[in-house]
Structure formats: C-alpha cells, structure tokens
C-alpha cells in the first residue's frame, strides 16, 4: 500500500516536472504540472499515514541508480513518514495556491521553469526523510537545495533576489560540506549505509564524536536556521515566490530538524549531557533572536521568516531537552521532549504555510510588501483577512488553535524537567522556561502587529486602498491549512497518537499522554481539554453578543472620534515602527537602533522647518561581528590564490608533479 502510494507520489512529481516543460500551452502546463504536484502530495500523505498508523517500516534498494556512489536505498520508518507527512501537508496547499498565484506567468519560459522546479523541489523533499544511505541522502538534499536556490532567484525584477540567492547558496553549501565531513567521520571508513553507521556509532571515539555532533549541528542548523546561521532565511523568503516561501518555511527548514533527530537520536548513542544543554541554549537563543527581530521588522514576509526562526528555536528547545533527558537516562521525559518538538514542527508547518500563502495574497492584491504601506485590507480582502486571522492567532499561541497546544506542552515539559532532575538542571530549566514564556509573549505582540497594521484601520497607500481579493483557488488553498490549524488545535491527540509510533520506534518509552480529546500529563498532573475550552469561549462570546443586542439604545454610525479634528487621515494611525517602539527601547541593547534626523529648514530662518526626515534602523550586529570577518578572510585567501596564476605555462606544468608528490606523501602518511 504505502510503497505504491510513495511510487505514485514520486512519479507524479516527475511527470509534473516534464509536463511543465513540454506541454504546448502555457496555461495547460501550469494546470497539469501543479495538479500532478498536488496529486503527488496527496499520495505522499496517504503513504505517510499508512506507515504511521501501522507503524510499519520497509526498505527498497537499487544498486543501478547512483551506482558510483553505492546505489540508492530507501527506508520508510515512522520518523521519516512523519516528515513526509509534513512535506505533504505543506506541499498540497502550496501547489493548489500556485494555480492561481502564477497565472500571470503563463506563456513565459520562466513560468514553465518555476513549475518544473517546484515539482523537483517537492520530489527532493519527499526523498530526504526516506534516504537510508549517505549517497541517497546527500543526493536528495542537494536536489532540494539546488531547486530551491533556483526558485529563490527565479524572479529577476524582485529586488535583492540575486544577493539573497548568494547568501542562501553559500550557507547551504557550507552546510553540505559539513554534512559530508560528518558522515565520513561517522562512517569510520566502513560502508556509508545508515544501518552500518547505527551499528558502528557506539564504537566512535568520544573526540571524533564531539566533532561529528558539531559538524552536524552546523550542517542541519544552517538549513533549519539556528542562530547564528539563520541569516539566509530573512533574505531568501521575501525573494522567493510566496508558495515557495511557504514550502521552504513549512517543510524544507523542518528537514534540518529531521536530520538532527535522525542522527542524534537514531544513528548515534546517547551523548554527554553537555550536548543537550548546548542544543537547549542554542534553541533559546534562536527563539529569542527570531522573535525580537520579527517584532521590529517592517517587511511582511521577513516578519514571517523571523518568526520561523523563532519557532525553530522552540523546536530545538524540545530537542535539547530530550537529548538532556536521554543523557540522564530518563527515557519518559526524553520521549515527551521529542513528542513536543515533533508536534510543534507539525503545528508550525501548518500555520506558517497558511501565513505565507496569506502574505502572498496580500502582496498579490495590494502590490506592496512593507507593513508601513498596507492597512485597511480587511475591507478589501475579507476572506484573506479571516484566514490570516486564524494563522495569526495560531502564531500567537492562544487557545483554541494549534500553536497553543505545543506551546502549552513546552511549558509542561520544562516544569516536569525542573521537578524530576538534579539541581544543575533545576537551575537551568527555570531560565529556559522564562525565556520561552518571554518568546510566547513577544510572539503575541508580533502577531497583533502583523494583523493590526496590515489589515485594520485605513489603507496607508493608494495601492493598498484599491487592493483586490485573491482569486478563489488561492483562497481555497489557504482554507486547507486554516482548517488544519483549527482541527489540530481542537483535537491535538490526533497528531500525538501518530507521534507515539515515531517515538517508540526510536526506542524511547512513550509515557501515557493522550486520552480521547484531552491531553493528559500524569507526569505533572495537569491536563488540557481544548474542545471544552473552545466551547466555553464560543458560549461566552454568543452570550456577550446577545446581551449587547438586547440593549434598547439607538445605534448609529459616525466619523471616528479623533479629538474634534476635521478629517481623519491614515497619517494619524500608529505605524508598524511606532508599534514596536516600546520594545525597541526595552531591548535597546539587542537592537542597537540607529537614528539619523535631518531637518530641511527654510533659507530665511532655521526656525521655519520645511520637512523632517528620520531614518531609524538597527545595526545587524550578528552579520557584522560574524560574517564580515569571514567574507574578508575569504577575499584575502582568493586574492592569494590569484597570485598563483602568473600566466607562465611552465609554472602551471610544475603544479602537476608538485600536487602529485604532495598527495603521495599524504597517502603514505595516512597508511
């Protein structure tokens, strides 16, 4: 069953890629390729669910393909299937959405290329979580990276696309090299098959074990966007077409999480607690950095990109906790940590897909992507507004939406950890709890700012004033993840039940977590019953509305009260920058804000001011401190290398024996 479904999925994607190129009419190419992409995602969904339900696992091997690298071998197990599920639930709405979103590209070669690459991208992401040897993994990983890179740079008139693509390419390939090195070390010269590595990893000397973990964190962290390797996300996401950003943020980034889990929990034996602590700290730092920037960022899609960084941080908090507990041999808590991390991965995939698609609809409809230029869209794009509100509330982690359940579980996790462990942790975990709580609060601020500035009040520009609602197909595509947010929020046990299979397959004892509709945690003696809470909220709201209706007073419409001013103009509204100002002041040490005010005064007297221009920005100190030196060093090295090219043919010939000699010596020395 699942084999067939998976085969269907991959064939559908391949067919989509081909059709996009060869079909005569542009519109037909769009429809067919994206339809087959959607079909592929559905098939992948079926495959994933069958595997998770039966918690079965099967392998498939072919020496013919990728022969020189040792053949392709796939293994479907619950962990891989779960991430396949994530790819599917993100990919299906994205491809539906693209049907309407990319209509303007019909008849252009670029359109065909984008559709084809989209299919390739999907196929690559479907294969990554199933790879069972290094060759397959790296191949699929690289397919994924290259296709997404091309998609990022696909729009020439998108400003900064080339620079974003460069950042992305450099980061992802640095990650690739680190990954290669790590796998080679992990393989210890043996066959680079995951089962062999799993067997051999126990005998890995601790020193090289540390190196491996470090390299892997760098590699997967650069894909997932861990601080300080997150710099490419806020650059690449705005440049890419929105359905691609949704796919990257919802699924591709999560495959970095997948890699971390696969290697640290599956291939490698329990590590020393220090690594768990390090991952936890890394997660906290990532979450705080992401949320602080997402609160202050003026660009709509960059706000979402930074909030992705934040949520990745929360996921890694769960992972680090699980690593710690695994190191201390507390299997139940480790399992709980892993479940929380995976659940939040799924939840974030769903609502972030929704939000990126909504952002695409906004940019499509209002033709501007800066929050400062938007406003009042709730009247021009009513349906998008409702869908976006759902996503924003999930982002803010409030009941009864899915963001809340995983947030709640994270809190419970840290409390349980503080109760059941020795003093060292009891001092670390409260700080982590405080940080996570702060992140939750700031995420709420960012959510209110995003929705309130973009959709409420008066439009701030003409383009926002005559914005138009997204086409029906796009709204239908957004409806899917919105429904997902609500269902997963009301019945979290749906997902948790799937996760038990994953965790027990990784050999961790699954503590009893789910009963019916309520999440019950016997460990901390607390439970959550989202449906009941939702019912209570609904009842309260209905009663309140009814009470408000019963009043006998006359109701009339009037101009907004603005202290007797003659006319209200958008210039009186609070801007996105102003909304974030208090936090900028509180965390001024983090933002390092820069202000430059320039007065344009009348020549007659400095007291007649014609205009004031204020440029407020904050210093990107992470880039400056970390990447500027690196770039300078790279420049220097390449400059030195340039010296070698004197142009004399003899020197070039002399390089050959020299290189040969060096290599021979190295080989001799290794033996």
């Amino acid at each position, binding site marked *: 069953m699942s084999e067939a479904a998976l085969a269907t999925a991959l064939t559908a994607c391949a067919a989509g890629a081909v059709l996009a190129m060869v079909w005569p009419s542009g519109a037909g190419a769009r429809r067919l390729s994206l339809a087959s992409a959607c079909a592929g995602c559905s098939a992948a969904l079926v495959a994933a669910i069958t595997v998770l339900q039966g918690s079965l696992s099967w392998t498939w091997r072919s020496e013919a393909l990728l022969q020189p690298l040792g053949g392709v071998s796939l293994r479907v197990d619950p962990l891989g299937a779960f991430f396949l599920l994530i790819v599917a639930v993100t990919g299906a709405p994205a491809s539906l959405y693209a049907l309407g979103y990319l209509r303007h590209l019909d008849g252009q070669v670029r359109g065909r290329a984008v559709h084809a690459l989209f299919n390739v991208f999907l196929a690559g992401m479907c294969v990554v979580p199933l790879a069972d040897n290094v060759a397959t993994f790296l191949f699929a990983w690289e397919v994924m990276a290259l296709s997404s890179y091309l998609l990022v740079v696909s729009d020439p008139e998108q400003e900064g696309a080339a620079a974003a693509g460069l950042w992305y390419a450099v980061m992802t390939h640095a990650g690739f090299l680190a990954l290669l090195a790590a796998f080679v070390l992990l393989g210890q010269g043996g066959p680079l098959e995951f089962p062999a590595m799993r067997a051999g990893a126990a005998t890995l000397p601790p020193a090289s074990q540390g190196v491996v973990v470090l390299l892997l964190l760098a590699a997967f962290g650069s894909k997932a966007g861990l601080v300080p390797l997150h710099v490419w996300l806020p650059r690449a996401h705005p440049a890419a077409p929105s359905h691609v950003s949704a796919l990257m943020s919802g699924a591709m980034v999560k495959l970095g999480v997948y890699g971390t889990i696969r290697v640290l929990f599956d291939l490698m034996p329990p590590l020393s607690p220090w690594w768990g602590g390090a991952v936890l700290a890394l997660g906290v730092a990532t979450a705080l950095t992401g949320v602080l920037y997402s609160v202050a960022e003026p660009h709509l899609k960059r706000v979402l990109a930074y909030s992705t960084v934040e949520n990745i941080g929360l996921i890694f908090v769960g992972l680090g906790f699980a690593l710690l507990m695994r190191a201390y041999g507390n299997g139940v808590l480790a399992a709980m940590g892993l479940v929380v991390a995976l659940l939040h991965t799924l939840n974030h995939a769903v609502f972030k897909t929704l939000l990126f698609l909504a952002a695409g609809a906004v940019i499509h409809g209002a033709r501007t992507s800066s929050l400062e230029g938007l406003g009042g869209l709730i009247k021009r794009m009513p349906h998008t507004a409702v869908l976006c509100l759902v996503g924003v509330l999930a982002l803010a982690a409030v009941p009864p939406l899915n963001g809340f359940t995983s947030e709640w579980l994270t809190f419970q996790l840290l409390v349980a950890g503080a109760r059941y462990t020795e003093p060292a942790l009891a001092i670390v975990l409260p700080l982590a709890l405080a940080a996570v709580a702060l992140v939750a609060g700031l995420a709420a601020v960012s959510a209110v700012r995003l929705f309130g500035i973009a959709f409420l009040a008066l439009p701030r520009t003409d383009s926002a004033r005559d914005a138009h609602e997204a086409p029906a197909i796009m709204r239908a595509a957004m409806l899917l993840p919105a429904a997902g947010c609500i269902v997963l929020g009301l019945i979290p046990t749906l997902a948790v039940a799937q996760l038990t299979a994953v965790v027990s397959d990784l050999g961790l004892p699954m503590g009893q977590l789910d009963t019916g509709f309520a999440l019950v945690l016997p460990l901390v003696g607390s439970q959550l019953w989202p449906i009941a809470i939702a019912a209570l909220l609904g009842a309260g709201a209905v009663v309140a509305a009814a009470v408000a209706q019963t009043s006998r007073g*006359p109701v009339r419409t009037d*101009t907004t*009260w603005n*202290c*007797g001013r003659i006319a209200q103009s958008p210039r009186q509204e609070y801007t996105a920058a102003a909304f974030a100002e208090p936090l900028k002041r509180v965390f001024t040490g983090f933002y390092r804000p820069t202000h430059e005010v320039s007065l344009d005064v009348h020549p007659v007297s400095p007291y007649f001011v014609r205009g004031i221009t204020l440029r407020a920005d904050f210093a990107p100190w992470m880039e400056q401190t970390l990447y500027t030196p690196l770039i300078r060093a790279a420049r220097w090295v390449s400059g030195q290398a340039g010296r070698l090219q004197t142009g004399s043919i003899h020197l070039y010939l002399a390089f050959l024996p020299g290189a040969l000699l060096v290599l021979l010596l190295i080989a001799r020395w290794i033996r």
Partner: protein
Amino acid sequence: MQLFTKILRTGIVTEPLPDRASSAVMLAREIDRRARALFGRALAIRQVDAGSCNGCELEIAGLPGPVYDMERFGLHFVASPRHADMLLVTGPVTRNMAVPLRKTYDATPDPKLVVAVGDCARTCGVFAGSYAVVGPVDRIIPVDASIDGCPPEPADILQGILAALGRIDAGRRE
C-alpha cells in the same frame, strides 16, 4: 507612613451641598423621564473648552477634589465623548472651536445632556461681538442648563449639573 497618619488626622473634608440650586443656575429644558431614570445616580461628563479664558476650567478642576467631591453624586469625568452622557461646555464658541464642538456633540451617544458653564457660554460675556467668536453655545448645540458667573463657583457648577439631571430643582427657568 507619615502620609497615612496625616490622612487619619485630616479626615473627610467634603462639604455638604444645599439641596436647592442657587439663582446662578438656569434650566433651559426639562430632562425627559427615561434619561432621568438612566442618569439617576450615574453620569459621565466630557468637558469641552469652546474657547474660554480657562477661568471656568480652574473652577471645574475643583469638582473632583476632596471639598466638592462630585463622585459622591455618581458623577465622573471621562476621556472620550463616546463614554460621556453630558457635555460640560465653557467659553464663547470661537470660530475654530465651532466645528469641533459640533463633532463632539455628534460623537456623544444618545441620550445626552449639555450644560453651559459661565457667562461667556450663555452670552459671550465680554467677548460678545468679537470677530473671532461665533456666538453662545446654544447657537451651535442645544443646551439643557446654563450656569452664570465669571467664573461660577464649583458649588454652582455642581448644582447646575444636578439641576440638569432633575435631581434638585433649578434656581431659574426659561
């Protein structure tokens, strides 16, 4: 600590209010029954300075204070006409304040009352005939009660408000 010992030593300094309004208060029109029942012992007031010399504001500032304590009658000032039941208007209406006054009146939900405070509000006082003055308050919005005096005493203002509410009977009627 000294603060609270002082509080204890001072005690309550609120002065009782005579239950018949002074002759300074003039009632333009009776409050209707429903509004009276509504505002019986709860009224929110928005103060509008329609161009006064701020003498009346100085007196009005005494109302929430300990001596006159308007809160004991269930009266309090609010920050927005949306929350208000009564507009307390001072000053001759200047040209610049005519529109804002009108807008403030429109921004106040029904039922609502208007009390004009001070001579200027009723007759434009010494500013009568100035090119900058449109006219008395009732030229712009309907006035329910007015209080003479330049400026009127806080007690008179309080009695005027209560008279407009029909809680004490006014000194004079039109």
